[in-house]
Structures are given as structure tokens and as C-alpha cells.
């Protein structure tokens, strides 16, 4: 109900806002000042109309004139020069011409925040530090960079922006989860144990220096990413050991730190944003039209020595559409998917308060629709859709002089729908069903189908009922800071507790209809229809998908004191996290940690930390581990001998070493202990002639590993920060050397005689090294403010040890290769003749024909077998970059985000795309356009695909389940990830309307992609997954 109301009200809301705007603009008048004559005074304001202190006023000759005071006021004695420049690190430089300004005028100078925010502080895990004293490696983005992408989750705006974070988007839209957390059984349901905490992220693979980062939101670990970027202050990835050491048993993985907006201003600030756009799928697979499909299937059958099934007349009938019922030609991508789908988002933020009590309120609504066609016959929505409602409130209260209290509440509801047959089923059916499989509708209007395709895809899309899924979150935190200065100067106590719950459920109201195969009557017989599939009336099932409860508590004692030039900080911290997921016994990681910082004259820095960390699902006695890290820093620019070099603002060398761990998420559910399970389905045996149910009890697989422990790592990071020319140019470089050991792997020398599956054991050793750099330059030419920031990262890895089976040849060995290197046969063109086949080594057990791929006999033993496998992927280090450039000029602003990856491989491991005509049901499945360039005797010279076969001859695709270098394709790509163009209405236009600042903008995402592999989008690895989307949107932002 709420949903419909809001949807309808969107329009009303938009219209009323626009009307108000127009009224304001037309009614606006320049306000004449009434100041003291001879003097020019004024105030510097931010876009909310609140004062900005410490703005430096400079004349054309770069002489400082004055600085605005706490209330933003400034006073100029006389007309100093032609122009005055207003300078502040956080705002664009503003130029005001004095022409036309009369003495006595009161100036209202509205400053615009820089797109690339400059801050002195950095949010780190459980703390905020001065950037000067930070010794690790971090990369941070702020609100502006996040909000220029319209998407349901903030992860969409990260690619290319954060140095060291590699992203890969494998789906274009969220994956709705509607499967139950129990396995239905004949007599009830069996709980699914040991699930991982549900995550919002079902679209992106994130890789931070080779590891999956731990998301921490406002000091609490939670995988929440589907929140409005407008509510986020900053997102930072922190990659070194010291930054993550307080995560204890997850500290190896690096942190993705999300800090949401805080109640940190006095007064009243409102920001209202609305935007709407359309999303278009990029690069869908291109199926063969029916006549080509029929022709090529014939060719494939004949290549296999079988009779063709289509005649030349059939090709023509397909081509001219003369018989759409018996010879249909349906491109299901066109028939099922729409070109465009809407997305919209509205957000209202209010901040304000007094010195003793401040608040923040955020409200958000977002709607995204999928691309499935729907039918007007349904009163309900069958398309994929998402509606999200967010409410955030935060309070910061100064209870006494010594006590600060913070309260925060966050609630989220996500309601989704999808077709009853399930999004992923439909997409994979579209992908694998040939164009001529069946007519979508029969002459009598019934849904077409047959024994092999007993589910009509359109019927699955519009006529299979629907599934509603729902996600409800509530998160509440209290934190307090108590100054114990009464007892000891510099001492304070902090505590934080957070409770949150998430419930995911689904209401399944799906159904299934029969499909009918149409057979025309002969000689006066009536036409016949044969039913296939199943007729299931609509069900109404409630499914509990996940029910999760989190509790987090943290207490710490902090000490902070300066003794002259010596500055000390120390902290002792204890925390505990309790995660209760569905039926599982709670996970209870806990840490006891200490951290000490010292610096001398902001020149020499020293920091060390210890963490004694535990996890309750390891064997008792094996639950506690010690992790530690320390760092050193030296800002050379602060040395006296460089005090003359005014152009040098910072030259800091820094280094961090730490021993970190990674357990908890990778070690299963009490896997140290051999457990048994009873089931009336698995491993059961019917009893006697009555076939009565005989439950089975069996050992859970794999075998228990009583010694299982967390993985460990020795991580080193060294870096340099350079800041030049009054902080206009900033350079950062990092090098890391991370050695992971005790990695959980299944031993290679496993012997099946044990009669059970082997468990993971702490065996492997991997090395990750890399270089990361970023450069930022910001400056202005008069009013023209511009910036460019670029980052480049390179990731290299090497398997130092894995318990590898004996390998005869060096090129067979995984050890020494990059982690995860794909091994397989090396392809060497096609066989062009029988003679060539006879003269060359071939794969044992296959009937090789001309047009098949020739594989290299690496060990020259005359046969192709497992000894001829070598690493077939690119071994150069994965490299990726992002460039963000833009300007702000007279109210116009532009930002362009470019992003790219190179030295990346794609492996096409999909028989449908590789060769087509896979057996499906009782017939052959779909084929795609690339196979038109198959090998035939005539095209032997130019062929890019091997000869055709039907029914899954795997010689060319994955012989003996091995990979081959033929299917390794370059995954390099370059994208215009994002363009954002905005115009801020002149201040005097909007002054009448709460003195507001109004920005109109247009955003575009995934506007252009260039890649050498263009069958589908280069980031998509599963070709039947939801395509990547291009988004074009427009909207407004009002601040007052």
C-alpha cells in the first residue's frame, strides 16, 4: 500500500517542487545591502546558507586581505583591487569583481564545496585521526564522488575511484534471494547450518590487494551496501596491517570503511535530492536467427556423420516467416526483455542543532525496475523490481562537560518482486533456447512448447505468478565518550554498543501452465495440441530466507597527551561481536587490543598495536590468536633544512609491518569436530516391501580437521606522500609485500583410500605484491576551478607453496605461478587436413577431424594428455586505473570518470557460446553469432571458431574437462564509467526560497566501453546473468 502511494506521489512531489522553484526564481530579486558606507562587509556562506569561517580573501596580487570570522563575517576597508578571491581548502576559489559594488553593500558570498573533498582528518577503524599521523595506506572518496552514480548500492560508484580496490561486476542488478534457509523434507524441514551472513552485494566481486575486504559501517562490521550514497560521508579502503589489526581474525583482509553522515553542525541544513533515469542493458548475447541456426545445425550434424534435419525449403520458411507456428523464429532477448527500465531515487537529509545537541535525519526512497516484459492481464507486477525505504536518525548530545552521548537509528525496508519462475531461470532459458524452439503462441493463443521445452519463456515471465521478497533491517547504536580528565589528564573512556537485526523473507505466489505443441491436421483431420510440462496452480508460500541478529559491544580506555613536542596516544580496547544467523549457534569473535602512538614534532611517527583475538567455533584450546603490527613515519618536509622550501608541503615516508589473520568466515561450522546428520532424504533406504521411509544417518562431509586454525599473513607496506605547491599537487605511492601462509586448502596429495572427502587444512602460502599510486591536481584559473585525480594499481601474486601433486614437467607446476592461474592445453590453430592430424600428436580417445583445434604436445611424447597442460593465462600483473577530471565554472560543473583494466583474462567456459547445439531435453540448444566464423574447408584460412558439432563434442571446448588456451580472451577494457554534469542556479535567483542553493544535474553511467572481447560485456563472466546496465538520469538537489 505504502509502495503504491509513494509511487503515485513521486510525480505530485516532483511537480510541486518544480513549481515552487519557478516561483522562487521569477520572484527573486537582488538584495541591496545597507551596510556602513565606505566599508564593504559581507559573509561567506556554504551552499546551505550557513557561515563558513576562515575564508581567506586575497587580491589579484595574491596579497592576503582578511579572513572571515567564526560567523563567516568579513570586513574590507576599501576597494582593494579589481577582483577579490575567496580561498578555503574545502571550497572552490571564488572570484568577485568589484565593479558595480558600492561601498556599504553587504556581500553574500556563496562558496561551492570542492568535488574532491580536502580534509585534515581521516576516519580509520574505530577512530578518527589526523592525516599527518596516519602511517598506513588508505584511499578515500567522499559524498560528491559517490552521488554522481544513480544505483541501488554505493558499490556501483566505487570502480576506478579507490586505489588498490579491484572490482568486477558480474550481474547488472541485484540477485533476489527467495530460497529458504531450510531444506524441505518429507517430514518437515532441515535447517541449513553454517551459512555466511547475508550480504547486500550480489553484483560485484571486490578484491583489495587480493583479499575480500571487510565492510565496516560506522565502526560496526556489517555487509550493508544498499544505502543511499547521499547519506554517506566517506568510503575508504585501508590496506595495510596496522589499519586493520583491530579486526583481529579478519585483519588480513583490509577494511572497506563506510562512514555515514554525522550530526556535526549547528543551525539547520536541509538537502533534498531527487533523480530519475532509465537503464538500458549493454551488450546482450546475439543469438542466431532461425534460418542460420537451422543451416548450421545441419552442418554440425553432417560433420558428425548424421543426417541433416532441415531442408532448403525450411531455411526459406524460417527466413521469410511464412509459417510462424511450425517454423518460428523468436529472438527471446527481444521478446522477453524491454529496452529500457526506470530507476529513481529521492533523498532528504536534515542536519542541525545547538552546541549541546545535534541531530541528523535522513529519509530515502528508491525504486528500480527490471527489464522483463509484463502483461496487462495481471493486476500485480511480475517484473523484477525493487523499492527501498530508508530512515536514519542520529543524535549527538553533550550531556555534561565530560560526557558525550551519541544515538543512532537506521531502518531499511526493501521490497522486491520477480516473476514467479525466477529471474535466473528465465535468463538461462533465454540464453539456451534456440530461436526456432517453439512458437511463443500457438494459433489458438495457447503458449507454445514441446517435450524438450516444456516451459514457455513468455509464460514464465508474465504468467507464472510472482515472488515478493523482502528485507527488513533495524540497526541501533549508542556510543558514549566520558572524559576522565578529573582522574588523570588526557584519559577518557568510550563505549559503543550496537544491535541490529535483519529479516529476509519471501512470499512465493508462483504457478506454472502447460505448454502445447501444435500439430496441424492432415487431410481434413483437425489440428491437434499436445500438452507438455506441468499445470501447477498458484501456491502461496511464505519462505524465511534469513533471520539474522547482530550484537556488537566495544569499550575502550584512551589516553592522549602532549609533552612539549612529544605527543602520546594510547588505547586499550575490548570488543565482542555476536552474530546469530538463522538456526546457527552464534558466532562470537572477540578482541582484546592495545594501540600506542607517538610522534615528535609531527616529524617522526611511531605506532604499534597488539590484538589478542578469539573465535568460538575453533576447537577449545585453539581459539585465541595474537596479531600485531607497527609502523614508522618521517615527514622530511618538516625538517629544518627544508624549511625554506615553501613549495614543499609534505614529504612523508612511512612503513607498516604486521602479522595478521583471517579466520571466521572461511572455517565453516565447527568443522574441527566430526558430526553426523540424520535425514529422511539423503542416504536413506526404503524399508522392506512396504517401501517405508528409512531415515539415514551419516557423517557430514568432509572429514573433520581437528587442527583447523585461521590463516595468517605477514604484511609489509611502504609508502610516500608528497604534497606540493600549497597542496595543489598531491602524490601518493605505495608498495606492498604480503605473504599469506597457513592458507586453508585441500591437500593435493589426498588419497581416496581414506574413504572420505578431505577437509581444508592450513597448508598454502601465497605472496601478493603490488604498487599503487595516485596523483591529484587542483587549481583554478580565475573562476575556472578544475581538478584531475588519477590512480593506478598493479597486483601481482605468486603461489609459494601448495601441496601439489607430483608434476613431471616444470610447466605443469602451479607452484611459482600467479595465484589462481588457469591451466590447460595450448591451442595452436586448427587441423586443416587428415594428413595434418596423422602427423601430429592428438588427444587420446577423441575422433579428431579437420577443423578441430590442434593442441601443442609440450613434452613431445606423441600424445596430448595431462602432461601437456601448462599455465595458459596471462602472467603479467593485473593492472587497473581510474581517472576523474572535471571543473566548476560559473555554476556549471562537470566530472568525468574513466576507468580501465588491463592484463586481465576472460575464460569463455560456456559450451553454448563455444560451440552451440548442446543437447537440451531431447533436442539441441541455442547457438550464437560468433560460430558463423567456424572452420569449414572453404574458410580454413579465416576461421576463428572450430568446426561445428552438435550435442556436446567437448574436444574443442573442454576436452576431458580441461581448459584450453583457445578460449582465453583478453579481458582488458576501458570505460567511461560516469559523467556528471550540473548547473547550480545563481544564488540571487534562489535567495527568496529559503536562501537555497539549487543544482540541476544529469548523470550517466557506463556510457562507453571499449574492449577487445565484445561478445558480451567484458566484466560478465556468466553469460546468462543479468546484463550490465547503462544508466542515464537527471535530477535536482536543493540545499538550504
Amino acid at each position, binding site marked *: 500500500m505504502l509502495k503504491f502511494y509513494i509511487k503515485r506521489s513521486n510525480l505530485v512531489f516532483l511537480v510541486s517542487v518544480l513549481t515552487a522553484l519557478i516561483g522562487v526564481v521569477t520572484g527573486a530579486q537582488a538584495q541591496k545591502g545597507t551596510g556602513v558606507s565606505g566599508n564593504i562587509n559581507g559573509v561567506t556562506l556554504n551552499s546551505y546558507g550557513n557561515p563558513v569561517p576562515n575564508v581567506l580573501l586575497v587580491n589579484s596580487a595574491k596579497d592576503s586581505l582578511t579572513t572571515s570570522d567564526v560567523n563567516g563575517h568579513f570586513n574590507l576597508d576599501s576597494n582593494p583591487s579589481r577582483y577579490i578571491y575567496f580561498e578555503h581548502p574545502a571550497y572552490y576559489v571564488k572570484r568577485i569583481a568589484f565593479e558595480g559594488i558600492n561601498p556599504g553593500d553587504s556581500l553574500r558570498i556563496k562558496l561551492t564545496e570542492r568535488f574532491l573533498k580536502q580534509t585534515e582528518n581521516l576516519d580509520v577503524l574505530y577512530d578518527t585521526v589526523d592525516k599527518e599521523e596516519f602511517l598506513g595506506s588508505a584511499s578515500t572518496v567522499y559524498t560528491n564522488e559517490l552521488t554522481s552514480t544513480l544505483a541501488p548500492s554505493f558499490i556501483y560508484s566505487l570502480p576506478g575511484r579507490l586505489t588498490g580496490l579491484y572490482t568486477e561486476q558480474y550481474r547488472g542488478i541485484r540477485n533476489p534471494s527467495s530460497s529458504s534457509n531450510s531444506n524441505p523434507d518429507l517430514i518437515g524441514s532441515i535447517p541449513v547450518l553454517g551459512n555466511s551472513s547475508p550480504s547486500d552485494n550480489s553484483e560485484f566481486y571486490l578484491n583489495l590487494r587480493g583479499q575480500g575486504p571487510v565492510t565496516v559501517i560506522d565502526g560496526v562490521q556489517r555487509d550493508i551496501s544498499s544505502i543511499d550514497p547521499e547519506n554517506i560521508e566517506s568510503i575508504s579502503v585501508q590496506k595495510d596491517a596496522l589499519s586493520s589489526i583491530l579486526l583481529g581474525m579478519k585483519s588480513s583482509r583490509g577494511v572497506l570503511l563506510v562512514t555515514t553522515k554525522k550530526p556535526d553542525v549547528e543551525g539547520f541544513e536541509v538537502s533534498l535530492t531527487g533523480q530519475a533515469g532509465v537503464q538500458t542493458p549493454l551488450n546482450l548475447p546475439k543469438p542466431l536467427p532461425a534460418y542460420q541456426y537451422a543451416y548450421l545445425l545441419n552442418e554440425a550434424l553432417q560433420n*558428425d556423420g548424421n543426417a541433416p534435419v532441415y531442408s532448403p525449403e525450411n531455411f526459406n520458411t524460417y527466413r521469410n516467416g511464412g509459417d510462424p507456428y511450425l517454423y518460428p523464429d523468436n529472438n527471446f532477448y527481444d521478446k522477453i526483455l524491454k529496452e529500457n527500465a526506470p530507476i529513481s531515487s529521492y533523498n532528504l537529509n536534515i542536519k542541525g542543532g545547538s552546541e549541546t545537541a545535534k541531530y541528523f535525519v535522513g529519509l530515502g526512497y528508491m525504486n528500480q525496475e527490471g527489464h522483463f516484459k509484463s502483461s496487462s492481464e495481471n493486476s500485480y507486477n511480475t517484473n523484477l523490481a525493487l523499492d527501498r525505504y530508508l530512515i536514519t536518525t542520529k543524535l549527538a548530545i553533550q550531556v555534561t562537560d565530560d560526557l558525550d552521548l551519541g544515538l543512532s537509528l537506521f531502518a531499511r525496508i526493501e521490497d522486491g518482486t520477480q516473476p514467479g519462475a525466477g529471474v535466473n531461470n528465465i535468463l538461462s532459458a533465454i540464453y539456451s533456447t534456440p530461436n526456432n524452439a517453439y512458437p511463443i503462441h500457438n494459433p489458438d493463443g495457447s503458449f507454445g512448447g514441446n517435450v524438450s521445452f516444456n516451459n514457455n519463456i513468455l509464460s514464465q515471465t508474465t504468467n507464472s505468478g510472482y515472488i515478493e521478497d523482502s528485507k527488513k533491517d533495524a540497526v541501533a547504536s549508542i556510543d558514549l565518550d566520558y572524559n576522565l580528565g578529573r582522574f588523570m589528564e588526557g584519559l577518557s573512556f568510550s563505549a559503543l554498543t550496537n544491535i541490529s537485526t535483519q529479516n529476509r523473507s519471501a512470499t512465493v505466489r508462483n504457478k506454472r501452465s502447460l505448454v502445447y505443441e501444435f500439430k496441424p491436421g492432415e487431410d481434413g483431420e483437425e489440428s491437434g495440441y499436445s500438452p507438455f510440462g506441468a499445470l501447477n496452480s498458484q501456491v502461496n508460500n511464505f519462505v524465511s530466507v534469513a533471520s539474522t541478529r547482530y550484537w556488537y559491544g566495544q569499550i575502550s580506555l584512551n589516553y592522549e597527551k602532549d609533552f612539549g613536542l612529544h605527543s602520546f596516544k594510547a588505547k586499550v580496547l575490548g570488543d565482542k561481536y555476536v552474530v546469530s544467523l538463522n538456526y546457527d549457534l552464534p558466532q562470537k569473535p572477540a578482541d582484546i587490543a592495545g594501540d600506542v602512538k607517538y610522534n615528535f614534532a609531527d616529524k617522526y611517527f611511531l605506532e604499534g598495536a597488539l590484538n589478542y583475538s578469539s573465535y568460538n567455533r575453533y576447537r577449545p584450546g585453539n581459539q585465541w590468536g595474537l596479531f600485531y603490527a607497527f609502523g614508522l613515519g618521517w615527514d622530511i618536509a618538516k625538517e629544518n633544512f627544508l624549511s625554506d622550501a615553501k613549495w614543499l608541503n609534505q614529504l612523508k615516508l612511512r612503513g607498516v609491518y604486521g602479522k595478521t589473520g583471517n579466520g571466521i568466515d572461511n572455517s565453516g561450522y565447527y568443522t574441527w569436530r566430526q*558430526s553426523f546428520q540424520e535425514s529422511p532424504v539423503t542416504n536413506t533406504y526404503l524399508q522392506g516391501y512396504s517401501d517405508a521411509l528409512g531415515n539415514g544417518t551419516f557423517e557430514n562431509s568432509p572429514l573433520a580437521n581437528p587442527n583447523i586454525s585461521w590463516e595468517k599473513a605477514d604484511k609489509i607496506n611502504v609508502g610516500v606522500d608528497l604534497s606540493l605547491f600549497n597542496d595543489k599537487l598531491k602524490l601518493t605511492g605505495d608498495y606492498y609485500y604480503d605473504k599469506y601462509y597457513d592458507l586453508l586448502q585441500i591437500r593435493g596429495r589426498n588419497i581416496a583410500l581414506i574413504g572420505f572427502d578431505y577437509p581444508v587444512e592450513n597448508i598454502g602460502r601465497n605472496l601478493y605484491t603490488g604498487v599503487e599510486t595516485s596523483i591529484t591536481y587542483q587549481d583554478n584559473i580565475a573562476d575556472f576551478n578544475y581538478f584531475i585525480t588519477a590512480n593506478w594499481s598493479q597486483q601481482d601474486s605468486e603461489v609459494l607453496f601448495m601441496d601439489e601433486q607430483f608434476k613431471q614437467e616444470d610447466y605443469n607446476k602451479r607452484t611459482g605461478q600467479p595465484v589462481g592461474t588457469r591451466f590447460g592445453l595450448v591451442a595452436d590453430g586448427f587441423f586443416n587436413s587428415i594428413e595434418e592430424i596423422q602427423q601430429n600428436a592428438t588427444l587420446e580417445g577423441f575422433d579428431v577431424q579437420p577443423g578441430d583445434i590442434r593442441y601443442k604436445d609440450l613434452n613431445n611424447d606423441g600424445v596430448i594428455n595431462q602432461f601437456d597442460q601448462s599455465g595458459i593465462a596471462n602472467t603479467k600483473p593485473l593492472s587497473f586505473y581510474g581517472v576523474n577530471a572535471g571543473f566548476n565554472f560559473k555554476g556549471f560543473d562537470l566530472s568525468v570518470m574513466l576507468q580501465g583494466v588491463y592484463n586481465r583474462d576472460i575464460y569463455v567456459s560456456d559450451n553454448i557460446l563455444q560451440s552451440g547445439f548442446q543437447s537440451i531435453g531431447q533436442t539441441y540448444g541455442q547457438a550464437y553469432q560468433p560460430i558463423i566464423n567456424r572452420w569449414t574447408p572453404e574458410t580454413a584460412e579465416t576461421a576463428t571458431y572450430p568446426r561445428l558439432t552438435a550435442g556436446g563434442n567437448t574436444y574443442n571446448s573442454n576436452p576431458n574437462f580441461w581448459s584450453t588456451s583457445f578460449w582465453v580472451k583478453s579481458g582488458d577494457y576501458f570505460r567511461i564509467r560516469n559523467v556528471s554534469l550540473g548547473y547550480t542556479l545563481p544564488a540571487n535567483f534562489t535567495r527568496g526560497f529559503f536562501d537555497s542553493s539549487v543544482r540541476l544535474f544529469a548523470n550517466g553511467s557506463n556510457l562507453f566501453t571499449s574492449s577487445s572481447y565484445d561478445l558480451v560485456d567484458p566484466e560478465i563472466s556468466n553469460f546468462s546473468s543479468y546484463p550490465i546496465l547503462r544508466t542515464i538520469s537527471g535530477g535536482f538537489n536543493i540545499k538550504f
Partner: protein
Amino acid sequence: MKSMNGKIYKLFLGLVVIVMSYSCSDDFESLPVEDFTSEFVFSTTDSLGIQAKKYLNSVYSQIEYGHNRIDQSFFNSGDYLDAATDDAISSSLDQDNAVLRLATGRYTASSRVKDEMKWGYYYKGIRSSSTFITSIDRVPLRGTVMGATGPIPLKSAWKAEARFIRALHYFELVKRYGGVPLVGDEPRQLGDDLELPRNTFEESINYIVGELDSVQDSLRVRPIANPASDGHVVTKGAALALKTRVLLYAASPLFNGGNINSENELTGYTNYDPLRWKAASDAARKFMDELTYYSLIPDFSDVFITEGNSEVIFFRQGSENSSVELHNGPVGFTAPNDGVGRTSPTQNFVETFPLLDGKEIGDTTSVYRFDPLNPYDNRDPRLDLTVLHNNSLWLNKQLETFQGGLNNPKAAIQKTKTSYYLRKFMGDFERTDNYSNVSHDWIMFRYAEILLNFAEAENEYSGPTNEVYQVLQDLRTRAGIEPGDNSMYGLQGNMTQDQMREAIHKERRLEMAFEEQRYWDIRRWKIADEVYSQVFQGLVISQSGPVLNYNIVDVLNPTFEERRYLYPIPYEEVINNDNMVQNPGW
């Protein structure tokens, strides 16, 4: 202000206490109780053995179910193993299908046909049996059941059942690989040395036979007291039946005298010893003499679909369903009778069926004449109960397997490749309109096999004695073959040993078709090279007017090489275990 600070201070203390007490008290057990351990399964207080029985069920569940066993997946029906012999081919469109790879030798030690060349699977079965055998002792199980010579403790019976199943797994390994490592009773743990060497073929056979001998008197006998609940259990009959099969295989040419690597003790015996045939013959004779409960039942097709008939010795439980019908039945019917015709019996197989009087096609002494235009008339009645052909009555319709006929449409779909469909194992659906649920147990041992085992072993040891003749005649009587004037059921009198061998082999092929016998028989008889050197054929029936033309066409060119008499041991097993020796040629 001061008092306020004091209050806050107290509040803190309170908070700390609450937090501490929260983290100290537990709402849940410290270890997941629902994930129970061995102490619960084999409980020292469970005198009814309720949990242990469930574990035993899991041990049973690892016995393989043969119907459409190979390459079975959620989406596809699989093939019968015998579709990798000259009896049939798979209709699957999948060029990589497992039986095709088996028939054409498209496998190596590192790219094995996983569905059939199982190794670890059997060791898993062996492990769970051993876990039961070693753990059941501590369960104070009460109760007795009836054995051959009086009551036996239930605990002994259960233990014996698990030991039988373990022996069965070992035999499955031995017939595939030759001698294999015998891992003993104690389940191995993670740190144990598992680099075990293979035991010799002789040791492996002796171990299996020894196990069967020592458990046979601890097992129940048929008729079982409560067949409704216990009809599936391992009986003494099962143990003796497995023993006859093990001894028959051990005495067969592949292992006894025809060892593919004559000095290799792993691949067979290194000598020929006729007494091995005698041992096999004696074991079968003992079965026939002692276990008089078993007999051939009158109706051949009832053997497979009637639970509790007196021919069945041991079976792998299947449920009541139509799966065999739907997986192998003809295409062209409409739901719910639309089969997918996975198995295409060959023309080679169909031609093996004699005429109704038991004489070969073309034998001029037969009272029947083979009519090429009506090729299925006056044939061994088992033909119609094993194979569906053109014009067979099925689901109240005459099957049309001619080109373009209802059951052999001209379309790119999976359908018969030989114009034949499988009939065996199905319910009697000739004269019904729809399939209905039928018991589809997988019969592992039935009395007819004991007879054939006896005939074969006895003929090899003593020649074609009257007993041998009698056995064949019994089988042919039951099959419905006419006795003829001389009451010889088509058999010649005074056959030589070689002639009799051929007759027994042929009888075994027809009687035991698709029961996972032929595939192993052609190997142990060491005739696989001959069998796979012939082309597998099918029919193309073309209709011109009312006349049907039966044209024989080639459907598969199989291959064979000597190393394929035994499967390759998985490559990783040989690489990872320094003591593991690969089979010759792999």
C-alpha cells in the same frame, strides 16, 4: 554538576556489569547439539539400536541402483551399463555421453568415465561399512532374528549385513581394477599413512570370499519374518549368490589363465587352475541344494516388478514409480506417457533371440521360418519382453518406429537410433492407456543367474553334463520356448564343451540382458576384443506405401584394445601414493 557526574559514574558501573554478564552467560549450548557425534549414533544406552539402524540404512544406500545408472543427472536420464556393449547404444544426443566413451575407449587414467570408473565411491562405502562394523559393538542391542540354523542376535545380523555390503564394494572394485588395497576394519584418520599398496588379485578374492563365508550363517534367511519392513535385508542367499559370482569371475579366462599381464599378480592369477571352476560350480550347487526357497517364477516380466517373488535373492531398493518407463519408453506419446527413449537396443542383440522353438534364425531344422518382412514373429518370447520394436503393442497402440512414424519422428530430438526401444524392467503396459507406478527395484541377484553360473562353471570343469542341460532347459521352459518333439527346447544333444559354452553364453546374454552382466561377461570371457570389433547395427525402417522395408544400418563403430580389460586406476591415486601400481597399459 558534581552529583550528575556521580550518577553517570554509577551508571557506567551498571553498564559494565550488564555487558560483562551478557558476555559471560550463554543463551545457547557451546557446541551444536543438533550436529551429533558418534557417541550419539552408536549410543551405549540405545538398546533398540534406533540410531544405529539409521546409520545402517546409510550403509545400504551406497549399494548402487542400476537402472539408467550411468550419466544420470537432474535433467537427464542416464544409460544402462549394457548400452556400452553390443546389446544397445545410448540414444543420447550428447556426444560425450559415458557409455559411448566406454564403448569407444575414450578415456585414460586422467580422464576417466567418472560415472562408471568409480574408485573413491567404493572406498567411501567400505569406510562407512567399517565404521558400522567397528562401532556397533558398543551398542547394547537386544533382540534376535531367525537365521538358517536358529535364532541369531540382531547385532550379529546387522554386523554381517554391513560386512556383506563391504564385500560387495570390494568386488565392484576387483572386477573393475583387479587386486586393490584392502584397507582393513579400522576407518583411517586424517594423519594416518594412506600410501597403501594394492593387494594381489588372489588376496582380494580370498578376502571377499572369506568375509562372505564368515558372515553367511549370521544372516537372515528367506522367507523373512517381516517382509513388509525387512524384505530388503541382506540374507544368506545374498551372501552365497555373491560368492558364486565372485568365484565365477575369478575362474574366468581373464583372471584364470588369460591374465593380460601373465606375471602380474595384481591383474589376475598367474596360472590356470581348473579347480577354480570347480569352486564356482560347488558354490552354485550349494546354493541350489541348500536354499530351496528360491525358484524361477513362471512369468519372466514379473521377476522385475513384483517385490517378494521367489526368484529374487537380493536387490537394491527402488521406489514405486514410472521412471524406467519414462526414461526408456518410446517417444511420441503425450504427457504423462512421453518417454525419452534413452536406450536403443541393437540389431545385433535382437538377432540373437532364437525362434520360438529355441532354434537359431536360419536353422533349417526349426519348425518356424524367419520372415524378413515380419521379423518379430515366432521368436523367443523374451524378445517381446526385452525390446519394443515396430508394431509392438504398447500403451494400447501399435508402435511406429519406422522413419517418420509417431515413435520415430523426423526431428532433431532424442529418440531411438536403431528403431528399437527397451522393454525390459517395465510394467506390463501393453494394454493400458497410461503408465502407472511400478516397483522398480534393481535386482542384483536372482535365481536365474545362479543357474547360469552353475551351468557355466560346471561345463568348464566337467563338460556338458545332464545337470548343465537341465539348467538351460529350465530357463528356456520358463522363457516360454516350445519344448519341441525331443523336449530339448531347441538345444542340440551331445554338444561338445565348446558348443555348450557358446549356448550358455548366449543364454546368459538373453536372460540377463541389461542387468549389468553382459558388460562384465565379455570382459571376463576375454571376448571383448571380438565383440567390440564388430559394428553395432540398427534398423532403418522405411515405409513405401503399405510395405515396410527393413534396412540394417551401422550405428556405432566401437573399438577395443587389450588394456581396457581393466580400468585405469585414477591418475591422482597413482601419483599421490608411492605404493600404488597402475594397471598395465595405462
